């Protein structure tokens, strides 16, 4: 109960998520009235995964003050890791089935070669690269979903934080990391099928008999559950002394250092933790999307992530969830061709093209006029207003609040 008292947003969040999950289930084609199309269920499931990675962005940026513009690289890596198993296992089943018709039973080697040809034919190869060595094992690839993003974040973070790279320079470094990774994966000999990426991920091996209607709901449930767990973990991390220390690092890094805390250690901890959360998010997202290719981890994706968190309200976890949910659903609406074009007579505004301008504009407006983002609306309701100083410092020291303002 103490925990709930410390986090008043927690019951509200759990209730909302539960009602949402039940509503979607009862409207779905597999378990409900069928009012909601399977593809929309998938969109919602994917949105939950994006909310999950937005939480990790909020932890690293909103709380610790590290503007990482590379967290989608970890998200994509998680997707690749689960995608390798999905593709391998399903291709193998198909190959074994087709070979069973032959007179002579196929040897293990023949099956492996045939699977290789099926998967890598598209990049002109038939051999399994080294990175696929665990692809046959579900549990090994699940472990890699956590290990690969975690290790990359550990090495990258250790090098960057140890040299005390901060602020915009760190952001640029993280952009360079995600760009380098996506360029590498674009190559055919990277071993992950180059720009074709991994596809057919929506088909779960051995479950061909189950329709996508049911599979989509299963993934939706899994995503909702993962989001809930992540939300609880994030709340635990930012409450208590750890939360104090990371917010301290955000506000005044040197002061934390002189208190005896190893700032680099804490940054690295948060960076790796959030990379792992992002990896898990990716592993749930891409089976719903069905395909992953290197374009998914292009630098722009990570920048979008920062935009979601900024619009939703950084420094509060539900803000990140709201931001990712709202922006990605609105984005689906505009880019999916559902939004009616606006005919101005001399020019027709096509939202598919103009959506990004709208998004950019709202980002700028939020940053300038509502730095608390959508999450700030809850402060408005609960009456926790901060004083409007119009940019002028008040109080005895710069930046301090006056008593009567603070009590408002």
């Amino acid at each position, binding site marked *: 109960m103490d925990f709930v008292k410390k986090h008043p947003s927690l019951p509200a969040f759990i209730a909302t998520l539960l009602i949402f999950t039940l509503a979607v289930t009862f409207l779905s084609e597999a378990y409900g009235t069928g009012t909601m199309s399977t593809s929309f269920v998938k969109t919602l499931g994917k949105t939950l995964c994006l909310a999950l990675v937005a939480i990790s962005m909020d932890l690293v940026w909103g709380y610790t003050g590290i503007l990482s513009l590379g967290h989608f690289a970890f998200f994509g890596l998680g997707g690749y890791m689960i995608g390798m198993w999905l593709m391998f296992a399903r291709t193998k089943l198909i190959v074994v089935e087709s070979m069973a018709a032959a007179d002579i039973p196929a040897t293990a080697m023949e099956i492996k070669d045939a699977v290789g040809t099926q998967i890598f034919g598209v990049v002109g190869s038939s051999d399994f690269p080294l990175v696929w060595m665990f692809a046959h094992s579900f549990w090994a690839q699940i472990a890699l979903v956590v290990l690969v993003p975690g290790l990359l974040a550990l090495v990258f973070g250790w090098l960057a934080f140890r040299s005390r790279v901060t602020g915009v320079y760190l952001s640029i470094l993280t952009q360079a990391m995600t760009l380098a990774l996506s360029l590498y994966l674009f190559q055919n000999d990277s071993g992950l099928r180059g720009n074709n990426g991994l596809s057919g991920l929506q088909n779960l091996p051995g479950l061909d008999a189950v329709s996508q209607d049911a599979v989509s709901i299963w993934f939706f449930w899994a995503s909702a559950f993962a989001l809930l767990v992540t939300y609880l973990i994030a709340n635990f991390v930012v409450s208590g002394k750890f939360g104090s220390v990371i*917010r301290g690092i955000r506000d005044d890094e040197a002061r934390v250092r002189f208190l005896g805390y190893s700032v680099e250690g804490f940054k690295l901890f948060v960076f790796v933790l959030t990379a792992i959360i992002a990896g898990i998010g990716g592993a749930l997202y891409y089976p719903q999307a069905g395909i992953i290719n290197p374009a998914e981890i292009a630098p722009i994706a990570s920048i979008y992530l920062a935009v979601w968190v900024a619009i939703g309200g950084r420094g509060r976890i539900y803000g990140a969830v709201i931001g990712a949910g709202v922006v990605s659903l609105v984005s689906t609406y505009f880019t999916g061709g559902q939004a009616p074009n606006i005919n101005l007579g001399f020019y027709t505004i096509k939202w598919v093209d103009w959506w990004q301008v709208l998004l950019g504009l709202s980002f700028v407006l939020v940053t300038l006029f509502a730095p608390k983002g959508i999450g700030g609306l809850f402060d408005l309701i609960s009456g926790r207003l901060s004083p409007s100083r119009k940019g002028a410092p008040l109080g005895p020291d710069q930046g301090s*609040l006056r008593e009567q303002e603070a009590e408002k």
Partner: protein
Amino acid sequence: MSQLLEVSGVSVSFDGFKAINNLSFSIGPAEMRAIIGPNGAGKTTFMDIVTGKTKPDEGSVLWGDMSKNLIGMNEAKIARIGIGRKFQRPTVFEDQSVFENLLMAVKNDRSPWSVLFFKPKFKDLAKVEELASEIGLSDQLERKSGELSHGQKQWLEIGMLLAQDPQLLLVDEPAAGMTLGEREHTTDILKEAAKTRAVVVVEHDMDFVRRLECKVTVLHEGSVLAEGSLDHVTQNKDVIDVYLGR
């Protein structure tokens, strides 16, 4: 008596400008010391060197009975072995409550894992209460420290220093911007602290230094110009020339 901190022959230059020039300084385990000197005398750079923020070009900084060399250690490690520092501008975490500020500073294991699973024990809470009453902020524990007055922030920062339970306190201009009453309270806090640990106060204000009733070190152009009681150094001809005479 063995000294707590011994700085000897330290020099450091920035782009050819010698900020500290062959400086030697030492302080005992329970001693109050005031450092005065004109702007640019190297007072803050001296603190930077002791706390590990700046690496000297030459010289040694030895700490404690074991004569441990502090040069090359990082700031966090130096803070953990018992050197606390207060900055000139009050730097507290304004977005957090007074209680959170103090609890963060209370001496405990500081590694990420143990901080993550940290639960304040009775003695931690008692320590926070005790410090809060010492710095006169008992009624303000739940307030955001950003709302405090300038003087209260200065005290909070001193309280955070004491919470670390350091053996040496480096305090940079604690009385800057304080009212007379606040200054007196600050003097009391520092004098009380100096009974059990070493306190180094950098200050411009002569009246404040006089109230501390302690040995004074005068810095000028990066080295020690004079040392002794306040009356002794204020009668020193060199000191009058470079500092008081202006």
